[in-house]
């Protein structure tokens, strides 16, 4: 087995909020043409018919207010530009139109095309260029947060395309329950920032199994003591709020929260793992965003195998049913480990959030059923060496890197 996989004992997933790939990492194409980012062809028509280019004018806060619509009908407009005919093709030409609908202000609507330059995002840009950045990681659903996060926990949203209550239908179990009920047992935990920020996985997990949860301070302590579970899912702080230690700034990067606070948070997760030498060599960290938040990306979401559920025309709000047979908009995703060659760009394979439980299950449990059709067909980002696709192993170095950056 390659030494990186041989050493791998812990997988950590940090899921941030509502930013598209082009918005956060698209400018990296200028540094590395293999990264599928912004080009001169990255444009959208505004409501006057003028072609508006993507521009490097994104600001840390105060620009995307109101929060760009990212519910199912709005995302459908963003992807298909209002085409509702049978056999329609995704063009990614409806982003400005969609944002215009919220304020009826042409100038303001063009801000949906703004993106960050790497110097503004030193943490995310460094991680993307130092480790493995995914050219094709898509949200699981062209819709909002809750249903997309469900794919990371269950490999399905059980037919939901919205923010409403979502109930687990047997036989599909959460990745946490699969691990803790396995023989031999594995360990798994969700770390929310604090009890004031809490989790987005309330209805099924927090309500019924609060023992699965810890705070971010516990995550830091567990990293420090070497007590990290086999699988950890980390949630950022979702709100500006006061705490015993003072003012806590939202770190989720959800518009209109401060982007730099999110940068600090990503760095703190990375540093906590890296500062424990044993943990650093035995951990893979995935930083990924739940969905694009209504912000421009140029890559059309591909079709995918249907999930066995159907959302009714009433549920989608588009007048059309949805069979979960197309992915959402592309999001940033970076896999981090000292066993990954610097500057890796993962291309040619399509990932989505169902890839998370698919990978964790495959790595820790091997063959497992039942799983949702989407999860069963999802690409995995850590190939166990015994698998026939070992060539896809990203932790491929023969010896561990010693040149990985530190954040201060």
């Amino acid at each position: 087995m390659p030494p990186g996989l041989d050493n791998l004992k812990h997988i950590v997933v940090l899921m941030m909020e509502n930013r598209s790939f082009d918005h956060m990492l698209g400018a990296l194409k200028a540094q590395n043409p293999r990264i599928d980012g912004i080009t001169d062809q990255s444009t959208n028509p505004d409501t006057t018919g003028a072609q508006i280019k993507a521009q490097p004018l994104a600001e840390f806060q105060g620009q995307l207010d109101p929060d760009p619509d990212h519910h199912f009908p709005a995302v459908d407009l963003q992807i298909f530009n209002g085409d509702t005919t049978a056999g329609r093709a995704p063009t990614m030409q409806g982003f400005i139109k969609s944002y215009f609908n919220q304020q009826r202000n042409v100038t303001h609507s063009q801000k949906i095309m703004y993106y960050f330059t790497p110097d503004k995002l030193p943490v995310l840009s460094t991680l993307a260029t130092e480790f493995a950045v995914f050219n094709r990681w898509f949200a699981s659903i062209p819709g909002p947060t809750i249903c997309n996060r469900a794919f990371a926990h269950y490999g399905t949203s059980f037919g939901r395309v919205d923010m409403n209550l979502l109930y687990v239908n047997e036989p599909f179990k959460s990745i946490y329950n699969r691990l803790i009920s396995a023989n031999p047992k594995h360990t798994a935990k969700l770390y929310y920032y604090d009890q004031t920020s809490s989790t987005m996985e309330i209805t099924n997990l927090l309500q019924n199994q609060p023992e699965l949860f810890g705070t971010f301070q516990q995550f830091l302590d567990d990293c420090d003591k070497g007590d990290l579970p086999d699988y950890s899912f980390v949630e950022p702080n979702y709100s500006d709020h006061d705490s015993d230690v003072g003012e806590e700034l939202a770190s989720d990067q959800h518009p209109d929260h401060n982007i730099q606070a999110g940068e600090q948070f990503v760095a703190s997760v990375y540093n906590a793992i890296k500062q424990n030498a044993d943990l650093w060599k035995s951990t893979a960290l995935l930083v990924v965003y739940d969905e694009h938040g209504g912000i421009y990306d140029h890559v059309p979401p591909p079709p995918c195998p249907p999930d066995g559920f159907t959302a009714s025309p009433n549920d989608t709000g588009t007048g059309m049913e949805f069979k979960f047979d197309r992915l959402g908009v592309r999001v940033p995703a970076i896999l981090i480990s000292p066993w990954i060659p610097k500057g890796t760009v993962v291309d040619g394979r399509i990932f989505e959030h169902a890839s998370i439980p698919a990978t964790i299950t495959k790595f820790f449990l091997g063959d497992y059923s039942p799983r949702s059709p989407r999860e069963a067909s999802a690409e995995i980002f850590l190939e166990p060496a015994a698998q026939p696709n070992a060539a896809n192993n990203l932790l491929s170095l023969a010896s561990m890197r010693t040149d990985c950056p530190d954040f201060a």
Partner: protein
Amino acid sequence: MTVIRVPVPAKNSFNPDRPVSGLLKAQILHLQDAEKRLPLDLRSNLYINAIKTEGEAADYIRQVTEAIHEAHIDPVRRRAKHRRKARPSIQIAAAADERSVRQTKKKVARKQPAQKKA
């Protein structure tokens, strides 16, 4: 080894008075649904439609999250914890007594000059 400096957000970024987002609204609704299943003594009794800001949302989210954890503590421990929690009300009662003593003293103090006049 390269050390990357991470910029600090502007000091005026903190805004708990920001209107509550769609995401937080959904989180509140999910917590309210969970709250309906909690024992009566652990419910917040807060009216969620009155929550308008992130700070107010955060307060509700904390109360219900703590209550969910509390509800899963075994009954014996929870009763014991509740007895410990009951102290603040005694302190309030004590404080109330203290205030009434102070008020009494004030009344007495007010009366004293009159007595002197007399």
